């Protein structure tokens, strides 16, 4: 190899990096600039409601059973038309997720027969101690659409009887 060849190769390499000096950087300046997450992103859990404000969660514990990390704890109770939380006979009176145990795999979302628990977009979770990492139902439930649709509330008798709704396949 000639004496010049190593120099040529070195210059070629250095030229590469020199060119990038003037190129647009690809770095996001977090936290001022945040990249938006993709539609299917698996972040913080949210317990969804129907449009009429009733909770979708029927306390069936399928999410707790499906969770590979045993992060979900569910206790169910009886629903009545006088004090209705969700349609059907059963609702979740206790619903806790241990955010530190959770691996954000989305099995709970897949296992839910009512599309109640979904993994949302929030990934900025931090805790100062283990106790505050256990999110109770109040922290997970999404807010009501309007104030008069709060749960629990009294509803007309015999209307909200179907626990497992007809769902659409996810298209996102």
């Amino acid at each position, binding site marked *: 190899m000639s004496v010049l060849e190593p120099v040529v190769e070195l210059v070629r390499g250095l030229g590469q990096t020199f060119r990038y000096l003037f190129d647009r950087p690809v770095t996001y300046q977090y936290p001022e600039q945040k990249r938006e997450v993709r539609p299917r992103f698996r972040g913080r859990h949210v317990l969804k409601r129907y449009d009429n404000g009733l909770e979708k969660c*029927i*306390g069936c*514990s399928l999410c*707790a059973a499906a969770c590979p990390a045993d992060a979900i704890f569910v*206790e*169910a109770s009886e629903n009545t038309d006088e004090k209705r939380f969700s349609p059907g006979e059963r609702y979740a009176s*206790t619903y806790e997720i241990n955010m530190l145990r959770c691996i954000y795999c989305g099995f709970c979302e897949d296992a839910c027969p*009512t599309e109640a628990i979904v993994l949302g977009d929030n990934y900025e979770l931090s805790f100062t101690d283990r106790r505050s990492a256990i999110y109770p139902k109040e922290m997970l439930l999404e807010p009501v659409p309007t104030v008069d649709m709060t749960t629990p509330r009294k509803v007309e008798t015999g209307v909200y009887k179907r*626990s*497992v709704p007809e769902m659409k396949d996810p298209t996102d």
Partner: protein
Amino acid sequence: MSKQVTLTIDGKQITVPDGTLVADAAKLAGIDIPVFCHHPKLEPVGMCRMCLVEIGRPMFDRATGQIVMENGQPKIQFMPKLETACTNPVSEGMVVLTQTAKAKEGQKGTVEFLLTSHPLDCPICDKGGECPLQNLTMEHGPGKSRFIYDEKLHLDKQVPLGELIWLDRERCIQCARCIRFQDEIAGEAVLGFDERGRNTQIVSLSDPGFDSVFSGNTTDICPVGALTTADFRFGARPWELKAQASICTQCPVGCNTTLNTRREAKAGGDIVIKRVMPRQNEEVNEIWLCDKGRFAHHYVGSKKRLARPQIRKDEKLARASWDAATKLAAENFSASKKDFVILASGRLANEDLFNLKSLADHAGGRAILYSDMGGGDLTALVGVGAGTNLGKLGEGDAILVVASDLYEEAPIWYLRVKQAADRGAALIVANPRETKLDKFAKFSIRYSYGDEVKAVNDFGKKSKISDEFAKAKNAIVFFGSEGLGLNGTSAVASACADLLKETGHIGRASNGLIGVWQRANDQGAWEVGLQPEEDLAKALKGKAVYIVGTDPVGDDPKLAKALEGAEFVAVQDILETATTEIADVVLPAQAFSEREGTFTSGERRVQRFYAAVPPTGDSKPDFVITSMIAKQMNIVLEGTSVSVVFDILANSIEAFTDLSYAKLAEVRPQWPIVGRGDVYYGGTTYENKHGLGVQLVPAAQVGGTVRIPKVKKEAVLRPKEKELLAVPVNKLYDRGVTVSPAELLDERVGEATVSLHPEAAERLGVEAGARVKISFDGVSGEAVVKIDDTISAGVALVPRSMGIAIKEPVAAKVK
């Protein structure tokens, strides 16, 4: 040895007794044929068509009657269509194919049909996770549905069949297991079908709804979530529950249970018992439980549980340390010397009672059993022999039930005795009034209250009944406390023991005397050496009393008065009671589910129970507390390991020789197979992996002659003119300390009642449902009148433990 039949199932050759159904034979061979309506303990009906299999039998030549042979083997002729395995008994040379395409198609079709009307309830159904329909759909059913959702049938959901059981009509698959159970096994046909075709539904035929103490068992055998208990509604999913073996503490049968526990937020983060399930023990309770055992477990988690030791300071109870409390008790007990009295009840385990008796013996005091039933010394002599199994009695055997309403006092014994009668045993029921068992009895004897001993002694005279009893191959006598007090029961027990000895029915298995005690471990208390006292008030007055596991103050005002005059009262119990209110020292004890121990059932079977939940507060097991007090009195009693206490017990008491915790935990394979992966076959009863228990050998079986002690019978009270004789009877759902905290049973417990003959009611001018005041002997209470025309006109039946302190027949005034 019954005739054996050899057949081939799926290529596997097995030999089973003649008369076995193909579905059961397959199970014995380890092959699972799916079933819904078939249950090994019920008669087959072939209603659900799930067990469709191909059955072929050896072909017979019509002309010669010989089997047609082909290549040296019998030619097997298969039916053109599938047959149900549950209705076909086995026959010699039968060939059964369960895995052929045709059979699988049939099973798949049946599941598909059953699912057409089934509601989409799995996520909200309590049965999900232990549901035979789910399991069999996964194994045999189709993966996709061909049925349109909108055409599903809609029926009532959450129908209360009585307040204990909910029925969901949409989920019912009309297998009739519940109806058949109530009809065939429980003997009370309170359920039935209504409507027909697609609309067939279950209805309750009784008022109050589902009026049977065995209603909980239908939820175990129901293959879907149609029948569920109100107690466990939405409690937890089966996989979230931990299971621990235990023994029911509500009656002397000693049913084997499994306690399902879970750590709950509803309970503030405590581990609580969610439900009580039966555990299989074919020698005791088979796979059943009565409703009292199933639903009356709430006292363990009650808010009124004692958690800390307390000492009375200035008229009030204040918290104290264990050292201080036991020291104070020990000082007072030591000081009282011969005036030291221990009052214990059959609620305690064998080990607790043994330590108490040891303490009494060493301290020179006295240990009294709180009970108004005698005769426990006789059951130690002529009790049922080791190896007794009520399930084996049948044709040629005799059972005599004296002065006991088994349905109310020991429901599972009622079930077993009734089934023995169904199998041909001669059931003789001797009772002053009609009870539910009379329906199945071969002979019913009616005597007046007070004539119990005479009724038993009449067996010595020649009569059809006594002949039947005398020549029976095996005979068992149950004696209870219907209308009897301490002396009365002792006399009856003695008379029964004499009868058994005369007729040679002692000293072997399935022969002997069984006492239908009022508490779970009364038999154990007798074995250890505690005995009841006739005049308890006198025995307590002025003494230093150590009351363990009983509530005399709440039971009887006379005893309350006696205790007021006692020198010192130390109370050791699990719940706050009237007695703890007046105590000088309160010692909190652990409930049975928080510790290990053993109970001795009425059949003298010693069974182990295990710890299922953590202890409440700072409570300790009873035997530990006794040992702590003993230590302060310079008496050494084992107080650390319960199995060591049992070993000492086994060394000291002859009947318990050779027993140890390891021996009590031995299990044997049992039939039918239940639980685990076979919930569809036997139900959701739990498999028994923790011990079947061991029966004690009575003195008569050990050998040598047995002398029956004579009992001096007191004068019998008779109903006088214009006066009522109040007699105590027993009620299953009463206001006992361990039953009251179960609010679900409140309706069944009801109010205190007094049952009168219509004539007596007329004389008093009251009707059914009227409120009256009944008073006798310093006791008075309010009761609701019930009319019963099967009793005599001079008696008033007063149930025990309902707030009116009655323990033996007594003349009473009713206003």
